[in-house]
């Protein structure tokens, strides 16, 4: 194979597919299994790769278009790999006025990715959102469940560092 597929946690995608098969097998006779199976697949891979979608369709005997229809209907499901940390910058009116765009620009340059993309090391995914309901703290950005308020573009580097530091060294990461 030309490019070995690795997922966020480092284990081989092939292995994960085998795990997915087991999961589907255990759930497939329950009615309405499609959504729970997709949820399980997403938490396994961090997103829904093509191989996983094909597998779900084949094993549940659901048309591929139906499976894909469900995936694209719910924003919960992601078709692109997601990093360990999902960064969401609020683009609601208050945050926008307070300079959310500059934050996004800073994030883009420092991470080297566009909105919706994930860094090569699978650590960060950059996304935007609508009003988080914290307009008093604008501009707001969330990293997974952490809320960062009154963010200035000059602080971005520091914020990212704190998450990078939480990581074990590279060598330990891959088994």
């Amino acid at each position, binding site marked *: 194979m030309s490019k070995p597929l690795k997922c966020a946690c480092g284990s081989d995608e092939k292995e994960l597919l085998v795990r997915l098969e087991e999961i589907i097998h255990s759930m497939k006779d329950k009615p309405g299994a499609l959504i729970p199976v997709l949820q399980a697949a997403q938490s396994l891979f961090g997103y829904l790769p093509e191989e996983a979608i*094909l597998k779900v369709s084949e094993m549940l005997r659901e*048309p*591929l*278009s*139906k499976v*894909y229809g469900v995936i694209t209907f719910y924003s919960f499901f992601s078709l692109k790999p997601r990093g360990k940390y999902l960064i969401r910058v609020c683009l609601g009116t208050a945050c926008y006025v307070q300079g959310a765009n500059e934050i996004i620009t800073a994030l883009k340059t420092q991470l080297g990715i566009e909105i919706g993309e994930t860094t090569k090391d699978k650590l960060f995914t950059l996304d935007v959102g609508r009003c988080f309901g914290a307009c008093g703290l604008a501009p707001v950005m969330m990293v997974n469940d952490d809320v960062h308020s009154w963010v200035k573009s000059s602080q971005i580097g520091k914020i990212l560092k704190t998450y990078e530091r939480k990581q074990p060294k590279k060598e330990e990461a891959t088994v």
Partner: protein
Amino acid sequence: MKITINNNIFEAQENDTVLDVARRNDIYIPTLCYHVKTGQTAKCRACVVDVEGMRGMQTSCNLKVRDGMNVHTDTKEVQEAQKMVVDLMLASGYHNCLACERSGTCELQDACYHLGIEKSTYKDAPTGRKDESSEFIVIDFDKCIKCGRCVNICNNRVVNEVLGFGYRGKETEIMCDDDVAMGLSTCVQCGECVQICPTGALTDKKSRGKGRDAQFEKVDTTCPYCGTGCQLTLHVDKAKNKVVRVTGRDEWPNNGMLCVKGRYGFEFHASPKRLQYPLIKKNGKHEQATWDEALDLITEKIKTTVGKYGPDVFSALGSGRITNENNYAIQKFTRAVVKTNNIDHCARTCHAPTVAGLAHAFGSGAATNSVDEILETDLIFVIGSNMTEAHPVVSYYVKQAVKNGSRMIVCDPRRVDIAHWANLYVPLKVGTDVPFLNGLINEIIQNNWHNEAFMKNNTENPEDLKEWIKEYPVEKASEICGVPVEQMKQVAKLLGTAEKVSVIYCLGITEHTTGTDNVKTIANLQMVLGHLGKRGCGVNPLRGQNNVQGACDMGALPNVYHNYISVKDEKTKEKIEKHWGVSGLSLKEGYKLPTMLHKATTGDTKILFCVGDNTVQTEPNMAKTIQEVKALEFLVVIDIFENATTDFADVILPDVCFNEDFGTYSNLDRRVHLLRKAVNPPGEAKPTWWIMNELGKRLGVDLKFTSAEATWEDMRATGTIMGGITYERIQHKGLQWPCPTVTHPGTPILHTNGKFTRGKGLFSHTQYRSQAEMPDKEYPFVLSTGRRLWHYHTGTQTRNSIGLENIFPEELLEISPVDAARMHIKSGDMVKATSRRGEITVKAWVTERSPEGVVWCTFHFREAHANILTNDAYDNVTETPEYKACAIRIEKVSEGVETVSRGFRQARP
């Protein structure tokens, strides 16, 4: 009950909707999502009406009538409400009708017309997005009104499960598979979605710009491809003498559905490569001749040769691809003029074991039940049928049945696509059908799942069977056929405990040296279970070609006249002689097809007439067939194209094709369908009945073939099973034989109430015999052969129609991933396949459809086809060749570009 619409009182039925009543009485209500076939989704709200006593507007497409209901469809309020919906619909797309293919037949345009909408009051927003990636269908997203009909029909009627809705809200859109371009998706281009789309969102690519629908003449006829016998309408450009479009007709057996060949494989009729004039071979070259020259030459040849050596040096081949009339014509000519019974046709190479086996067991050699009954069955048992490719429309019914709760078992050495929908897929080893089925019967009897009463009352020899079947305990059977004991028991239990079982089989059963035994064993199984003579049951062989059933019915067989009356019967002979006005009909059975050919090499066959057969490419072991054909003194080929056989012909006569003359085809459930003339034949092409009539005249016999219908009438006069079928009766709908009198309604189910045609059913003792050529060290692979969705027979029709060739341009040898990995072969590599009889170089397709040790290809492509390799070993009863198993070896020749394949539920890589 009665309801009032717009102050007029109308009669209504219990389950009617308001829309039903309105439509019956020509009251227009716009409907954009509802369609009888896809049902009420109440999505569009274009059909709103006002009902007195009900609040707000009601959607009429799903509003059930109540007695005394008072409905208004034409008040200002209703019209305004309808208008608003249609207006919004216009605005959410881009509907400029000027160049739209559907202008004139579009339901949205109709709605605007009726409501007086000239232009949307909102701003429309064209995106210009189109998907033109597929061969035959264009998707114009701007014209999609998201009614959902196509999604519904693709998933629930043809069950190809390609289309779906993706995304949400404003972004909602139809898509193929996981939103890939249609041309890259699993779409099989059946075109059903195009036929049901209300707008120009889905259109046929081929007919784009060819003209408006209204300027075409519509001719109802029958599909010229497989034995399903789909009913279709040809849209004909009379001025250009061409078919421009094909649509499915809402009639049995297909109810509007078609497959890619039937819908998009029609241009062959207008191909410049069609044979147009008689050709006579002079100095090794075919030269154009007049009909008189050609016919005189043939007459002379028959006179001298038959005069010198007797009638049996003459042989003729009818065909499963030509009409009943033409088959009757050639058999009558052979018998009445030449006075030999050496007449046969290509059923010899496919379903002859069916005819022989079922006639032996039941007294009639045809399918016992009808296609539509598949929907009513409880358990569908499929064995040896690749129906999604060879009989696509039958497979739609099977898949529908499964979707609606029927169970299905698929038994096949290859994981054919229909297995995807099966509850149980049983991969048995090639050529082990007899032990497999006997093992099942044994297990069924052991467990008392058999139908004792049926066996006792309706069969002749149940006790014999119970005795000898003991030779096949499941364990032993399992060892031979390779199906695990547990799985065999599971299958036996499913069969034994189901309420209605329908067995559907095809050439995987018949094309073996044990073909007739295989068929007899299937008959045994159904007689043990008692699933015969009832709706939703039976033994249902899928006859391959459009008219292979009919060619048998018409007596293009060496042992029977039309209607299956034996040639050895004195009384029949007299009766037929009297009717035909001849004497001296032969009482001797004629040669079967392979024998005719073998006898050429010993000089016993000197003249061969070959109508629509392409013998050289269709018989096994091509090298040998060529020798035999070369050894003939005189070969006459009547066909529509040059092919591998015409090369060797002394005279070639141009035939007409399916839409150039009237005629009939009999389909796989014994339904006789009408063909209509839609265009003029090219050049001087003539129907076979005319040719035979002319030759008859020259040889002193008036065959009375003055038209196709006259030929049919001539047959009918001595007909029994089809005596009641006239052209007039089948103008719109086919009739199923037996239909002995003109008032008889036809027979959908044979052997009802357990009364077999032959009286009582007959069990046959069948034994396992291995295939003629087992794989060995030198030739380690088993080669099995079959058909592809995109092509038909030797490709003369499909390869001369635009588009099919682009989808599937060359033969591929299917090989399992395990074997491929071992031999370092990947999809796209060139490999050489060699058998004891020849070799071909062909592209490999690595696919999980093939089990380890088995490879597969077809005979569609003249450049590299299976029959160069196949074995000329024959079924001992019917001389049907063993196309499904021979031994070959494979070597990789060169690297190729890997083709992408996603899963095995696909008819192409």
